[in-house]
């Protein structure tokens, strides 16, 4: 009995003394750390928005969005801190967009992708291709930005994330209207379209009858078979069920799912512009 008391008492005393020590050091360093982080943050904002006077922070999922205001309370733009799954762990980066919807800055804060390979995402050569793009640009691999071979996963992840987040910033904070596709304006017929999947182009044939999508057939694809089955036929089913392209594309194969949606959009767009090559 006495022995147990002695043992617990020793542990308790060691614990209490440690706690006291830690409290002391914490109280001493905490304000220094907070001050330094605030200064770093301000510097980061000023790099993109030199006339910043005030900021307001919003959170969507895991991403932080700082709305940047100047001294007369005009919205200058948004600086986001975005977390994106890379090749090996989370890539955290800043994306800055000015009030006209143009990307003005991209900076990797931290990543754990392979040194010498995936860390190409930190190079100005890779990052500069995003600068000046707007939320209306495709920001699509092989279209207006390039991935880097050898580091396809890291660079594709960044490209997809920037595209998605540019949309989120523009539509959520900069009050741009998202263009919603009007399917009822499409004349009856079957149209072909092409979208970029994860691996290669995906070609689809979309059948429209009476302003409704009635069938989506994939004509050509080169996706990884195991992943592809996650998005097909699920994604065409969703599009047909909701009669919309603004569907939830989170599947086990988001890259392929996006490819299918983009291919359908491409087909319908061509149909409306009248240049649609009607098949059959």
């Amino acid at each position, binding site marked *: 009995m006495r022995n147990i008391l002695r043992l617990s008492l020793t542990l308790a005393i*060691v614990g209490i003394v*440690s706690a006291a020590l830690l409290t002391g050091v914490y109280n001493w360093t905490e304000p220094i750390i907070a001050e330094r982080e605030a200064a770093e943050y301000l510097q980061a904002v000023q790099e993109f928005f030199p006339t910043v006077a005030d900021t307001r922070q919003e959170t969507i999922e895991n991403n932080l969005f700082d709305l940047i205001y100047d001294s007369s309370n005009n919205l200058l733009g948004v600086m986001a801190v975005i977390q994106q799954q890379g090749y090996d762990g989370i890539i955290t980066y800043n994306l800055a967009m000015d009030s006209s919807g143009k990307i003005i800055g991209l900076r990797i804060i931290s990543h754990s992708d392979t040194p010498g390979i995936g860390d190409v995402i930190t190079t100005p050569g890779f990052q500069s291709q995003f600068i000046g793009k707007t939320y209306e640009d495709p920001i699509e691999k092989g279209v207006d930005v390039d991935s880097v071979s050898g580091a396809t996963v890291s660079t594709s992840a960044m490209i997809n994330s920037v595209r998605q987040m540019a949309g989120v910033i523009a539509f959520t904070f900069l009050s741009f209207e998202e263009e919603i596709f009007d399917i009822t304006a499409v004349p009856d017929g079957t149209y072909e379209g092409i979208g970029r999947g994860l691996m290669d182009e995906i070609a689809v044939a979309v059948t429209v009858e009476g302003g409704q999508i009635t069938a989506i057939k994939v004509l050509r694809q080169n996706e990884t078979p195991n992943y592809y089955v996650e998005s097909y036929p699920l994604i065409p089913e969703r599009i047909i069920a909701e009669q919309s392209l603004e569907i939830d594309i989170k599947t086990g194969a988001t890259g392929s799912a996006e490819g299918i949606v983009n291919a359908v959009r491409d087909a319908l767009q061509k149909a409306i512009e009248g240049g649609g090559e009607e098949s059959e």
Partner: protein
Amino acid sequence: MSNIYLQDISRGIVKDNPVFRLVLGMCPTLAITTLMVNGLGMGLAAAAVLICSNVVISSLRRFIPDQVRIPCFIVVIASFVTVIEMLLKAFQPGLYDALGVFVPLIVVNCIILGRAEAFASKKPVLRSLADGVGIGLGFTVSLLILSTIREVIGSGTLLGETAMTVNLFGPAFEPMKLFALPPGGFIVLGLLLGLVNLIFKRYNIK
């Protein structure tokens, strides 16, 4: 009298070198020795924790009952690690970011618990201090050697990512990135271990 303390210190650097002789603490050794500044920072951080924990554990050795010694050691070590972590974050943020998760992981660095168990819990305070300094220096020197070799071959620089970076081979040089990656760590460590064994054998150091 002072002789024995000097002996403790030199033993920690050479004969009981934690990396090359005891082969302890391999996880941080392999992971962070990509740049000299990281190797030096990690070595000094671990040395600081080791010296503090050795002194405290040695001075408490008569009060801590045998049955609860390991939890007590861990609490002491963890406290010092947390202190070091907060100090680094406040005053050396660059180094703190570079060392990342390996700072909190000093808690489970087997060198530190190993010295607490094998030395500090049995020997007087001053000798434990000397042992902490010796082993800490030995660890720092080893990390510095490893990281220098890996940085020169793997990045082509000296003191990279500091204000004093020296670019050794000019811009046209394509560094052998393998050495900045984990396999390079194993290769350099293995060769150095062999070399150290060879030297010890040749000069019959026991």
